């Protein structure tokens, strides 16, 4: 997937810079801050931003800036890890089902029909509700729900591609089904998957943050943007900084992923059509 980078707009590059900073934060948070994100300091409670704590401190005297920085790792991890497992699994199921067709395919389609009727977030919350809160169940919930889209997306493309002449050609050459699927069909579906997956990272990240905000995801005191905002919500009237900064980070990261995703999908689709 070769992409011409010159074509992208300024806003795309700004978004890329934001994402790079967030990635850097998650890789080496120590580079940005010297404070421990969970260390409480009873002498500096709810302090507005000032020289030593540039984002202020929260109700337990923790440095908001370092909490925001250390959150990046977990939030990106949730976004990526919650996306990748169902993406791989769904792609496999979709490929097999679309390639072989038959009864198993019909059954799968039926299951997908039933479950796509349920909005993702409703299902995720339902699963968390039944299985209990916590980060492990959060992943399980998103995994159990997330593969549907990939399976559907991939299957619909595979069904088209498998009837193309070059697949017939590959068959006459005696290639195995596996080789045809992975060498000849999947590469053609890849750009569709990538385009969807980028937005999916954002969706997963937002879902993780939302569940943590509700108290159903990451447990305290682990730094995570949604969870920090949930903690700060009670002090919203007096200490705006506790929720403002993680909110800005979350928003910027989400918007940046969207912009980068839009730009890349535009480039990938252009390439396919051109």
């Amino acid at each position: 997937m070769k992409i011409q980078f010159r074509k992208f707009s300024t806003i795309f590059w700004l978004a890329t810079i934001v994402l790079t900073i967030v990635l850097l934060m998650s890789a080496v948070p120590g580079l940005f801050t010297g404070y421990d994100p969970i260390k409480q300091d009873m002498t500096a409670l709810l302090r507005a931003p000032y020289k030593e704590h540039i984002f202020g401190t929260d109700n337990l005297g923790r440095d908001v800036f370092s909490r925001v920085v250390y959150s990046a790792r977990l939030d990106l991890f949730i976004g990526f890890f919650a996306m990748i497992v169902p993406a791989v699994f769904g792609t496999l199921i979709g490929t097999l089902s679309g390639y072989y067709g038959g009864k198993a395919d019909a059954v799968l389609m039926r299951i997908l029909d039933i479950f796509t009727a349920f909005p993702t977030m409703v299902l995720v919350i339902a699963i968390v509700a039944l299985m209990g809160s916590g980060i492990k169940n959060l992943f399980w919930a998103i995994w159990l729900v997330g593969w549907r889209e990939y399976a559907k997306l991939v299957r619909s493309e595979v069904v088209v591609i498998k009837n193309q002449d070059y697949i017939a050609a590959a068959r006459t050459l005696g290639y195995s089904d596996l080789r045809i699927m992975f060498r000849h069909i999947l590469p053609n579906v890849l750009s569709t998957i990538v385009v969807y997956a980028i937005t999916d990272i954002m969706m997963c990240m937002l879902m993780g943050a939302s569940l943590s905000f509700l108290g159903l995801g990451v447990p305290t005191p682990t730094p995570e943007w949604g969870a920090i905002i949930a903690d700060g919500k009670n002090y919203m009237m007096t200490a705006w900084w506790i929720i403002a900064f993680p909110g800005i980070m979350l928003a910027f990261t989400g918007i940046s992923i969207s912009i980068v995703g839009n730009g890349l999908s535009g480039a990938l689709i252009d390439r396919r059509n051109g």
Partner: protein
Amino acid sequence: MDEFVYILKRILQMIPVLIIVTVLIFFGMRMIPGDPALLMLGNRASDEALAMMHAKLGFDKPLMIQYFLFLRDCVLFRFGDSITLRMPITELFKQKAAITISLTAMTIIFDVLISVPLGIYCGMHKDSKLDTFLNSASLVFVSIPEFLIGLVLLMLLAVRIHVFPVGGWGNSFGEHIRSLILPSLTGALMTSSLVMRNIRENVIKVLNMDYVDFARSKGLPEIWVRMRYVLRNVLIPAVTLLAMRMTAMLAGSIVIESIFALPGIGQMMLNAILARDYPLVQATVYLFALIVMIMNLITDVSYSILDPRVKL
């Protein structure tokens, strides 16, 4: 008559799905390691209290019997008492439903008020300044979580300038409406961004269709062309999208009701999850499944009424 048969068929098809849902709800909860009764009561519970809770949850009976009892309750819509709220769950639903339904209704009103005029404007004035601006704005609203939008609105309009109450439901009709404005706006911003984009794309598509020019070539007044040819063809897909988003509002109501302290079903469910009130959680999840399926049925039927090309 065809419609009636179709609806009946769809309702019959719902039955196996609902049975699967009950199985998932029932056994999903039992898959959690540990004793739910112990989780509910805490580690220091006495043996008597534990035994009583077991009896209350029906754990003293064999698993299959427990399931069939649960299934019976689901069918009869008789869910027993909530453990934390100590009230019949059906009664709780009745009390709380009004708030969640009004929240959803008002959100839909905002959705339509925002997305329809803006979507049509942007479609007709493609690449104009407002169009470019709204396109970026919709990208923003789709990329940030609902709770953040809610908090920002709350900070700006309730905490800073006291235009709206910070939360709660109020006591009079006027107060109810006032306390619903910010929550429904929160719910509406993301959905209307999606619907607005959909309408915009469709306006652009429809305006390029020959039937619009053909209508003009008949000498029809422009307003007639816009209403009957453009608007009608644009709004049909938008209605479906909006209806689909309405089911997504179930999840939204949990977030929004908790931010704005609206005592609706969403908030009740969140509290039930956090307090491990399993009977209430199970009943609410079942209720959600039921609502989603009924909403889908209504969407499909109304779509077929609106669009003559879609056959039931």
